[in-house]
């Protein structure tokens, strides 16, 4: 078992996500930065779908009751394991009784702690991911608190073979500030000027940026005036209800990028969608950081996703 001594600012158990339930209004949840989550898992010999601890801004303090192998990936976080400092992007052996104490993230926003065997909580609707808004999954459906005890799953690998593995520097991501989007579903509702401004503006991440959505501040985007159709709300940003793509951007005054715990549909025009590899980058953008959107085609987005998969496969193979 792992005992939580301090849950940090907002830490949850997450896996790859809860899929196949979107039609009933259940968002996928899962690791906000899927790349870091998967690399952390790969470092400790886990399959990508094992659950990790996602720590936002502030790290956890944990005590391990048994020997374990752990790895940190994602936002850079200083910390100590026993008397030694713990590296990022590298697997480390933990002895029974050791305490791991993590500080605040210095770059990026989310750090993933993987444990060989994964964090073993009861899956809900096929996933161990925490969805705090309705209180399901993870540990009691909520963020971790002091006193929580987390079970560790079985690892197929020999712990002696797992410690001391790291990925090469070229695979450690740089948290770029350019976020690629595909325009649509309703970008036709924006004025020509505003459609251009979406990509030319420097947007600032506000303090209202969490697993549900990232609210951005920049210029005011305008919609083409029209007589609203039957079924659409009165605001020019309203449309007849539609399903919201994960990562889509809606503009109820200020833009919000919908993230992995967001509402699945509604009556706001979604003017663009952040492509999946770049949602990992956006998940690492901190409050007050500036970002820019770059419009790409669907083909370019699919190609970027393919490159990300290849990179993850290369990392995993390199560790075997």
């Amino acid at each position, binding site marked *: 078992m792992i005992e939580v001594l301090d849950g940090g600012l907002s830490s949850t158990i997450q896996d790859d996500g809860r899929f196949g339930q979107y039609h009933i209004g259940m968002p996928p949840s899962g690791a906000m930065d899927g790349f870091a989550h998967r690399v952390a898992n790969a470092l400790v010999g886990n399959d990508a779908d094992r659950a990790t601890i996602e720590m*936002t*801004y*502030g790290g956890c303090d944990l005590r391990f009751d048994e020997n374990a192998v752990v790895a940190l990936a994602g936002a850079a976080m200083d910390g100590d394991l026993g008397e030694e400092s713990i590296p990022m992007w590298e697997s480390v052996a933990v002895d029974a009784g050791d305490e791991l104490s993590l*500080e*605040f993230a210095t770059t990026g926003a989310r750090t993933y702690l993987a444990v060989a065997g994964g964090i073993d909580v009861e899956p809900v609707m096929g996933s161990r991911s925490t969805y705090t808004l309705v209180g399901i999954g993870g540990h009691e459906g909520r963020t971790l608190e002091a006193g929580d005890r987390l079970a560790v799953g079985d690892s197929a690998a020999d712990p002696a073979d797992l410690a001391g593995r790291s990925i090469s520097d070229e695979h450690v991501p740089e948290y770029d500030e350019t976020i690629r989007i595909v325009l649509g579903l309703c970008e036709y509702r924006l004025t020509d000027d505003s459609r251009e401004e979406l990509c030319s503006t420097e947007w600032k991440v506000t*303090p209202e*940026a969490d697993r549900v959505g990232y609210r951005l501040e920049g210029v005011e985007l305008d919609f083409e005036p029209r007589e609203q159709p039957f079924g659409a709300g009165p605001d020019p940003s309203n449309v007849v209800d539609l399903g919201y793509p994960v990562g889509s951007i809606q503009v109820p005054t200020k833009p919000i990028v919908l993230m992995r715990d967001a509402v699945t549909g509604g009556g706001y025009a979604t003017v663009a969608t952040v492509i999946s590899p770049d949602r990992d980058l956006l998940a690492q953008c901190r*409050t007050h950081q500036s970002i820019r959107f770059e419009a790409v085609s669907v083909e370019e987005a699919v190609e970027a996703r393919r490159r990300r998969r290849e990179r993850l496969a290369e990392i995993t193979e390199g560790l075997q």
Partner: protein
Amino acid sequence: MTTHTIEAPMPGVFYRRSDPDEPPYVEEGDSVEAGDVVALIGVMKNFYDVEAEVNGTVTEVLVENETEIDAEAELLTIETD
């Protein structure tokens, strides 16, 4: 006498009180003990307690209530005896 400066460990909004109707946690001139909450930082609807790290007297609050701050922003100073 030594002056300690408390810095923000993360970005967010700086709050001097727990609720708009409550008095500030501390005013300049107040005595504090290590571990006392002196302010909050709110980010993503979470609130982090900013605690005094030393016993002493609050000499200066460097940030206005409800200001947006970055990580490492200097928040307030405490002078130890």
